């Protein structure tokens, strides 16, 4: 019998620590499928974030290192400049990429570092217990916005794509999600394009994935997916930005 579906070689056969309904597991797998399909597993160096995905290196079957909170794209810069023959990507959450690491994000993008960034936006800090993220949407309740995010006090959710879109060195920007089989296929295609952008030495590429956090959204996994579609996507519209 012909085998038509299996675990990607890039993904280790290990149970993850993620909560039920969390999007990280799906995106981990999509990245691994893409890496296998592009046959770059032996060239990849990944930089794991500080956040829920901090031990992604335990799940991935390729070279990985950690980075201090927010510094992944600076670390990626160092790696890629020394070893341009490798494929270098960062995997970062919203707090990592859009709060503590905003400067590293904008400047790595603006220098046109030829690296790929997978940006997981779930509008909340997961690992530390559900605090407000820069991408938390207005009126969303979190541990540190108990009455909901109020633009008078916390400002508006930060749209990183719009900030990066104006930079000439940024060559690929796409916002996707994982709420259905169709969306997951689109997400995979975007991740693949971002890696191809790097393989073709075109410059900085980033895919933002609207991802679910049922635990800190206080929702069931199914409700969480619906919340992305009905609420989050209004603030962060899907589609290719650049």
């Amino acid at each position, binding site marked *: 019998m012909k085998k038509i579906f299996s675990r990607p070689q890039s993904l280790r056969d290990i149970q993850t620590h993620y909560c039920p309904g969390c999007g990280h597991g799906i995106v981990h797998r999509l990245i691994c499928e893409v890496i296998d399909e592009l046959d770059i*597993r*032996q*060239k*990849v*160096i990944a*930089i794991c974030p500080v956040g829920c995905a*901090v*031990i992604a*290196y335990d799940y*991935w*079957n*390729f*070279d*990985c*290192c*950690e*980075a*201090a909170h927010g*510094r992944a794209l*600076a*670390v*990626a*810069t*160092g*790696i*890629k*400049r*020394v*070893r341009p023959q*490798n*494929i270098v990507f960062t995997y970062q959450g919203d707090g990592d990429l859009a709060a503590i690491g905003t*400067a*590293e994000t*904008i*400047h790595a993008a603006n*220098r046109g570092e030829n690296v790929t960034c997978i940006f997981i936006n779930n509008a909340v800090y997961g690992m530390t217990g559900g605090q407000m993220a820069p991408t938390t949407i207005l009126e969303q309740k979190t541990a540190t916005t108990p009455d909901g995010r109020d633009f008078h006090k916390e400002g508006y959710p930060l749209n990183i794509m719009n900030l990066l879109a104006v930079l000439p060195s940024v060559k690929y920007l796409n916002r996707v999600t994982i709420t259905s089989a169709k969306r997951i296929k689109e997400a995979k295609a975007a991740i693949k394009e971002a890696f191809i952008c790097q393989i073709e030495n075109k410059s900085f590429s980033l895919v933002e994935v609207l991802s679910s956090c049922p635990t800190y959204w206080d929702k069931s996994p199914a409700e969480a997916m619906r919340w992305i579609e009905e609420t989050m996507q209004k603030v962060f519209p899907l589609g290719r930005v650049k």
Partner: protein
Amino acid sequence: MKRNQKPVTRNQKKILITGNEAIAEAAIQAGCRFYAGYPITPQNEIPAYMARRMPQVDGVFIQAESELAAINMVFGAAVTGARAITTSSSPGISLKQEGISYLAGCELPAVIVNIMRGGPGLGNIAPSQSDYFQATKGGGHGDYHSIVLAPSTVQEAFDLAGLSFELADKYRNPVIILGDGMLGQMMEPIIVHSPQSTVHNKPWALTGAKNRRPRIIRSLYLAEGRLEKLNLEFQRKYRRIEKNEQRWEELFIKDAQIVLVAYGTMARIARSVVNKLRQDGQRIGLVRPISLWPFPNDIMGKVSKNIKAFLVVEMSYGQMVEDVKLSNLGNCKVEFLGRAGGGIPTEEEIINKIKGLR
């Protein structure tokens, strides 16, 4: 360890150069091909030199958006096994502490140069030695040490910069070169030579998992007991470094009654005091720590048994003096003279202090 006064041979070049540029050139000679830094006075000659020099040797120069980014770029380069360096001055080094802690935690070799200026806060751009605690006691979070080397001349800045890459690779540990604005800015003739560079096997470096198992570089260990075990391994390494890497220069120790202790630029002034008083027949000596961590405890302990007092002289309000006290086991008195914030103890002040000790 005595200061080397090697004669110039035919294939060596003698050049006039600033301390800052000497460090930069030494890095190149040591095979360092990665520099990331952020402008700050009084070390700006280093990035400027590297911006010119790195492209000539197919190396990488990056002017980073911040000190945080610069040290983490160095972290990235080190992850691949490359020799990498960042340079800054006091306020910028404060910002790098996070990255230095991660380098130590991940056991990555890298060289960090601190051309110290006056503090605290923004302070001023005058030479200072007020970052001794920060450099030698850890500086960032966690139980770790950087190896700290303190050159006193431009030649020594060149030599120690070369050595720092060897030590970083040998121990998989960050190495700090602790200079000050005076040493960075002054020009002296030096002999340029390519230091003997050992090729270090780096079976931990990330290069892509081709025909081997994937490698992970991390400092996060959540399993019970695992991080404690790692820390104990670090401590064993630090004890090994303390045993092997103490460096110092001594002058007129044999019959000295009072021994000055000073490092870096301050040691130049102390040396001239010692030479002057020796001409008057006074029994004065000097110990100049070259490695500040590991602190040269062995020689300090030995000397302390035969003298009346150490006089520690620093461009700070008393930092290294604490290590001197710890090292001499109460064998002799430990006196202190220091100025900071741009003030430098003068020969006269030191001589007056010595008079008061008699």
